[in-house]
């Protein structure tokens, strides 16, 4: 059973984070949103497994309550 890996898994985390921020340099907010969305789709396809994707979607929504919803 594949599970979502939430333990450290990125080989060089600081390098990756820097690349991620650099990716958006010079972009407008709208362009950044587009690039982020493309990134999500590319990574989701790479993962492929529905159970892992569902777990990631749920983890992303954790601690983000819709306005008006009970915290």
């Amino acid at each position, binding site marked *: 059973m594949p599970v979502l890996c939430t333990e450290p898994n990125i080989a060089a985390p600081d390098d990756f984070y820097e690349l991620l921020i650099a990716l958006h340099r010079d972009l407008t907010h709208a362009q950044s*949103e*587009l690039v982020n*969305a*493309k990134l*999500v*789709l*590319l990574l989701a*396809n790479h993962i492929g497994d529905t159970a892992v994707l569902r777990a990631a979607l749920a983890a992303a929504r954790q601690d983000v309550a819709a306005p008006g919803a009970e915290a």
Partner: protein
Amino acid sequence: MKTYTNPVYAYRRSPDQDGTPARRPVVVVGAGPVGLAAAIDLAQSDVPVVVLDEDNTVSVGSRAICYAKRALEILDRLGCGERIVRKGVGWNVGKVFHRQELVYQFDLLPESGHRRPAFVNLQQYYLEEYLVDRVAELPAAEIRWENRVTGVRVRADHVALTVATPDGDYELHCDWLIVADGARSPVRTLLGLEADGQVFRDRFLIADIHMRTDFPPERWFWFDPPFHPNQSVLLHRQADDVWRVDFQLGWDADPEEEKKPERIGPRLRAMLGADADFDIEWASVYTFQCRRMRRFRHGRVIFAGDAAHVVSPFGARGANSGIQDTDNLVWKLRLVLEGLAPERLLDSYDVERSAAADENIANSTRSTDFITPKSAISRVFRDATLQLARRHPFARRLVNSGRLSVPRVHTESPLNTPDRRGEQFAGAMVPGAPAADAPVTGPGSSWLLDYLGQGFTLLSFGSAVAPPAAAALLRDRIPCRVLQVGGERDEDLIVVQDVAGLLAQRYDGKPGTCYLLRPDQIVCARWRSFDAAAVRAAIAHATAHD
């Protein structure tokens, strides 16, 4: 319209309009595609049927244009398929554009060895006209034009209707009422019933134009094209050099303004070129909805087609699914009328077609959400998908401008007999699946499906069923014909030959394999060896006798 003149079907006074109310076994409200299909199916099996329609002609202007393979196969069984296919435009290639660029193209051409293609395009008025012509060939069916149902009273053993005509009102009684009076369904309202769901906050301009061009017969879909920025456009070819153009307008558009030729002309010229030569045949502005009734059967009143469920047109699931409704319903109703099945068999219509409606609504809602994103972030993901699709194959699978209308596989159906323990089958022909077609040679047609659909059929590979056993099945109260694949002819069997080997392949047929098919050509049981008692038990189960 230049290319089509609506026929006028004359109102005729019926003897039922005089004296005490007549009692009919089945009345159908609505002579749209669905009501007409129901009437043909009933009359083909000698059930007398009266169709009431408030109008005196077929659809004014085209609505539905794409008929999918399964609907065409049903129309074949109803004796109309060939005429529709011959007049219509078959197509397999679809192209999707984003802004100026071709994002990808797809080919729906299924594997060969099927009689009917993925889709045939034909204006809805032709479809209806051909169905009306077919009704005229059947002595058991009668259409009463300019007969509007204005009152419905459900009684214990019948339904009483009030019908308004040019000669005034009359009352008509029936054992069973099939309601196929369209999305607004006055009968549904008269009975205080509702269809719940979602209205999409968007408007679409539908224009049918007559134009001679050398565009190929393909489905072209644009997201955000330069000639209609921020919205989508769809182009489809129909018969008689008529093209369907569908412009997304947005919620704020004024439907009355947008329908005017002086508004439509410039939109079309921006798209087709300043010197494009076309005539506008018909135009209309629509909003789309996805809604369904909670139950399709209310005692003796049974809803079908748009009256029971409506979907947005992306994916062509409206008329296509309505025709599958009546295909599912009519054999059950016939058995009930003949006293050969209990009334609860009709509840399986509700179970099966509700599941199909949910599937159609889910598909059509997903397409509509992609075409009409409801939020800013939904729009961002949509555009991200389209941008990725130009370079990366994975993203093309996510682009949704309408999915192919495919029939529901009724794996959940209460009428199915589960496979015997230990028996394995490859392929798609599970209990609940509509039978796949295949080329055959035999005493009649050269397509398998033409041999199925007159009652229950046992498709038997090899000579597992001895002729006397076949003769006995045919003499049962609910008869079952044996269709043998391969081997010699015998009086009690119909034998077809699997000329291309596709039957064995599609059904994983080995000597001894038997498939039981319902009158609507749906698999309801299968075995690796013949057992007459098991076949009888499966037929009893498929007719709600246990």
